């Protein structure tokens, strides 16, 4: 019998893997992908509560999150490409021109 | 039980698609030949039977299966092997939601669907799957570690992403007409009246969809990812043997799937113009007799035409007898059918489940006929139009098709609101 808790714990695990990726990796693209993973696991929480409460509202918010993720991907990848053009590296700790 | 039936249906549909592929390759070669005013393949033969060049496709299958499979040392091996699998997989799973006919109702049993899954989000599923098609091409281009392949992969990614936008927007008009994303609802909404088909109600959407579909299948006016005259062979330069064959098959499977979608969305799916399903069901006996007679007459006429082509000593070997091999049995079957009709024609009456099954068979036949016509259309276009330049391609996609699709949505929504 699968309950709400199963889905919540799964979402927590996936979210924390995303956090782990953001902390550990130095490659901007992989950090970005980890953020997408975190967004998706939040969607999982929204949907499991929507299923639990029997209301469709949660699905609407997932829709919003998907839109935000799409916008974020477009702008973020634009920034990465623009950054790469100025300084051919993808590693976050090599981009420190603004460090005081 | 349900799972077994679904698995059987899946297998059957996959089998049919895989078997139409060699037929399409033959059609492509012959079509190309006749468009370019030559005869096309006509040499390969089994005991003198050439089937007008169809044996060439069989030879190709054997050749590609038994060739040495070379994996160059500089490639990225896992992705190199994965890419053709993705291409083939994605090309065929779209068939899961295509409806081939009305659900068959026999007695008090539950209706038997003539499609694998009647999804509530059918059309979105089609788009979701077709948007994955780009992975096969991109990963192949990247994994091959070859500049031509990489260029092909990049081009195809840019092209597919651009055209998918107009493709998705062009069918919004159809959602608005049908009020549903379920493919069977869309077909039922079009009905048997020819002038209610979406080709007449949504002509702009049809042309946008068609152009975008050509781009998605990487066929000729948009075959920049392959572009043999500029990129050698594009994304599949490094492939050989069965891996190449998978890409080749995926292209044709894509054509078949695309034709299925066009037939479903714009040409009334399984509907026959001006002959409603109820009428066929009511007059099943009459329809059966007409079909019987028609088949007999067709066999007789076709067989005798073939027999007339027989001329002794044209080649001086077994090939002389090729028309007879098909002509004589054709004539005999035809006369047999007609004779049986003369004897039993008035005594046959269908059992209770007869009309439903007959209707389903006719609908599947009509649907396949439409699909084959569009497959031919793909080939026709390929050998008629030249290739776009890259900037023209992008201009067409973003500056012409996208605004047109948006305008189409606006007009359709307005009309739907007024009604």
């Amino acid at each position, binding site marked *: 019998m699968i309950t709400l808790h199963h889905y919540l*714990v*799964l979402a*927590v695990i996936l979210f924390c893997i995303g956090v782990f990726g953001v902390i550990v990796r130095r490659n901007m693209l992989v950090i970005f992908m980890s953020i997408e993973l975190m967004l998706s696991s939040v969607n999982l929480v929204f949907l499991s509560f929507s299923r639990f409460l029997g209301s469709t*509202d949660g699905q609407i918010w997932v829709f*919003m999150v998907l839109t935000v993720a799409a916008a*974020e991907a*477009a702008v973020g990848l634009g920034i990465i490409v*623009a950054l790469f053009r100025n300084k051919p590296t993808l590693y976050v700790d090599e981009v420190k021109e603004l460090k005081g | 039980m349900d799972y077994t039936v679904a698995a059987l249906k899946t297998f059957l549909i996959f089998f049919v698609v895989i078997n139409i592929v060699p037929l399409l390759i033959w059609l492509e070669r012959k079509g190309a030949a006749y468009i370019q005013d030559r005869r096309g393949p006509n040499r390969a033969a089994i005991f003198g039977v050439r089937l007008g060049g169809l044996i060439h496709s069989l030879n190709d299958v054997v050749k590609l299966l038994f060739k040495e499979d070379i994996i160059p040392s500089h490639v990225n091996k896992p992705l190199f092997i994965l890419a053709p699998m993705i291409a083939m997989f994605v090309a065929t799973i779209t068939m899961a939601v295509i409806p081939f006919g009305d659900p068959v109702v026999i007695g008090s049993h539950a209706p038997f669907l003539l499609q694998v899954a009647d999804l*509530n989000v059918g059309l979105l599923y089609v788009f979701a799957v077709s948007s994955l098609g780009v992975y096969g091409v991109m990963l192949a281009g990247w994994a091959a570690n070859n500049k031509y392949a990489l260029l092909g992969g990049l081009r195809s990614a840019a092209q597919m992403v651009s055209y*998918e936008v107009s493709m998705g927007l062009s069918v919004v008009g159809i959602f608005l007409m049908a009020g549903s994303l379920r493919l069977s609802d869309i077909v039922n909404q079009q009905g048997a009246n020819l002038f209610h088909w979406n080709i007449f109600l949504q002509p702009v959407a049809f042309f946008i969809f068609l152009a975008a579909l050509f781009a998605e299948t990487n066929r000729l006016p948009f075959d920049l990812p392959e572009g043999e005259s500029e990129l050698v062979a594009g994304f599949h330069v490094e492939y050989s043997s069965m891996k190449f064959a998978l890409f080749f098959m995926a292209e044709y499977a894509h054509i078949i799937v695309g034709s299925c979608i066009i037939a479903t969305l714009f040409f009334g799916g399984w509907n026959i113009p001006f002959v409603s399903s109820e009428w066929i069901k009511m007059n099943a006996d009459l329809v059966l007799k007409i079909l019987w007679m028609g088949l007999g007459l067709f066999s007789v006429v076709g067989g005798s035409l073939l027999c007339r082509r027989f001329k002794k000593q044209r080649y001086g070997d077994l090939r002389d007898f090729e028309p007879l091999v098909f002509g004589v049995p054709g004539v005999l079957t035809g006369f047999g059918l007609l004779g049986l009709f003369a004897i039993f024609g008035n005594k046959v009456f269908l059992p209770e489940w007869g009309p439903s099954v007959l209707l389903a068979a006719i609908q599947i036949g009509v649907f396949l006929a439409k699909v084959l016509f569009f497959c031919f259309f793909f080939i026709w276009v390929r050998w008629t139009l030249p290739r776009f330049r890259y900037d023209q391609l992008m201009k067409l996609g973003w500056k012409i098709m996208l605004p047109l699709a948006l305008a189409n949505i606006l007009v359709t929504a307005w009309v739907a609101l007024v009604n």
Partner: protein
Amino acid sequence: MESIIFYAFGGLAVVTALLMVTRQNPIFSAVWLVVCFFAFAVLFLMLNAQFIAVLQILLYAGAIMVLFIFVIMLLNVREEELKPKVLQFSGILGGGAAIYLIILFALGVLKEKVASFPILPADFGYVAPVGKLLFTKYLIPFELTSVLLLVAIVGSVVMGKRKL
């Protein structure tokens, strides 16, 4: 049946997510993340969210990840060279933080008593109910997302231009 699918695809999602964060080559990360999103889509289907599940594939796997791979191919990224010291420290820190967070959240979740799912109407999560809600109760947020998308389009065009 339900629990088999949940454990199979939940496990797949976790494994592929771990593979995603540990691959050195970003293109493998991207491919594993695509597989992970498929597992997510199956889980969404299990939660009666057909429409969202298909959107997940259409948007994430079909558009966003294609963009990622496109950028990786375009920049022709080399494999990440490992800097053992840095990796070690940040690895310990990240791993510790992740495990701490997992335990914290899981304990918080499991403190509540077990909540099983109710039975839902047949058309829950279909396109029509979601769409109806989207265009009535949530009309203003929905319209605002279009503004967000417009801003994103303008922003990415500005970013992409070599000089304005």
